[in-house]
């Protein structure tokens, strides 16, 4: 998942038939800086600062500083549905204001008020293992916890409570709102886990990347 290397080439395997498959491009043919900025900001979860962009992309901060407002402007000029904005600590993609009513309608229509099974499971892990990092949650559930943590944070059931002193990873815990919604006065009132546990640590069938 994380390797930039092209997929294993195999003579025995027939050519991939899917129309959506791009040809892997070896690193070297460097796309223009504007494209790299678009790519990184498209998937960044937090606003990204110019310094971080410069380091990550191996470009000068000055050039990036010059380019980003231009890019932002071009989206306005082209009447796109998204905007690039400088907010607080850095730059981030947002929806365009004039589209907001439709986006809101769309979000509300698709949003179930109930938590998904994945969200519930993650909530259970956070509640009993807090403070806990995303990595640890992912290890327990065997699947990346990013999306669900995002949902739980947005729903104010989970929040950042600090950083791991060794790795610097963000640690998560449950909120007072969580206790309120569960009808508990404190975390001590959570039912003890011990009688439910068989007592072995979990192994996984996963191969490290």
């Amino acid at each position, binding site marked *: *998942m*994380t*390797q*930039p290397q*092209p*997929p*294993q*080439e*195999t*003579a*025995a*395997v027939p050519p*991939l038939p899917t129309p959506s*498959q*791009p040809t*892997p491009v070896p690193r070297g043919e460097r796309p223009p800086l504007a494209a790299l900025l678009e*790519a990184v900001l*498209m*998937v*960044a*979860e937090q606003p990204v600062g110019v310094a971080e962009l410069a380091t990550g992309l191996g470009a000068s901060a000055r050039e990036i500083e010059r380019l980003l407002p231009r890019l932002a402007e071009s989206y306005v000029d082209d009447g796109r549905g998204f905007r690039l904005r400088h907010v607080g600590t850095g730059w981030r*993609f947002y*929806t365009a204001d004039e589209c*907001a009513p439709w986006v*809101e309608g769309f*979000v*509300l229509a698709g*949003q179930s*008020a*109930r*938590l998904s099974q994945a969200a*519930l*499971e993650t*909530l*259970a*892990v956070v*509640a*009993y293992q807090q403070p806990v990092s995303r990595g640890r949650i992912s290890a*327990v*559930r065997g699947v990346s916890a990013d*999306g669900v943590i*995002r949902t739980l*944070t*947005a*729903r104010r*059931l989970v929040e950042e409570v600090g950083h791991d002193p060794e790795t610097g990873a963000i640690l998560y815990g449950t909120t007072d709102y969580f206790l309120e*919604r*569960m*009808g508990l006065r404190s975390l001590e*009132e*959570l*039912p*003890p*886990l011990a009688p*439910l*546990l*068989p007592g*072995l640590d*979990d192994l996984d*069938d996963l191969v490290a990347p």
Partner: protein
Amino acid sequence: MTARGGQPEPFVVELANFSGPFDLLLSLIAKHRLDVTEVALSQVTDEFVAHLRRLGDRFDLGQATEFLVIAATLLDLKAARLLPGALSEDEAEDLALLEARDLLFARLLQYRAYKEAAALFAGLMALESRHVPRAVALESRYADALPEVQIGIGPSELAAMAARLREPPLPPLVATDHVHLPRVSVREHMIAIIGLLRELGGADFRTLCAGCRQTIEVVARFLALLELFREGRVSFDQEVPLGELIVRWIATDDPAADLHAVGRGLYGDDASYGDDGPYPDADDIARQEAS
């Protein structure tokens, strides 16, 4: 053999009538383009041993194991084709044996196909991982507009969920049942029954099954009895309803002389075991089996 696993080099066979990768040899046999009886398997094995020696440190246990399984199957297949009727005069039985071996071979090939598909999947996933999907926190103006969340479960359910997530998976087991399927021959059980009846004259089903260790053997004895009954060699006597059912030898000829004739039609398509006639009561059999 497959692309994954970094196998150092494929095993290539050099024979009088074939030269190329071992894989291809298998494909040809599977497609009936090459008769397994024309393949010098001893030579293939010699070459494989030489191949392993050549690899030295790069010896791959996976490849060696796979070769062993495939070679054993091929050997079985070839032996069966070269020795028709060695076990009995009945051609139908040989056919069944051949089919069973073909099936085993087919299953091997099927597994290999899935292994290749797995390599393909890994490739597709690696390709797709070059595209990172946008998945970011909802802008607060939309998040704030969402209705209040329903958790939907209480503290005890949450605890059960947390406990379940920490449950260790079952320890990995190496299954061996795929190495050989237990083969039970009804014919052998017919012979055993004839032997017993010759000795005892008559016996109930429990006695006839005394030496069986597995359920499948009891089933085979039961089928053997039906077959013997169909051939008119045994009779079933039951004095009272649900009473003890006694099997008796009624064939006029000497039981020993029947050994060769036994088993006719067992694997044929004629599946009707007698038309009328008293069958052993099913409940009776079940009771005896359970005891």
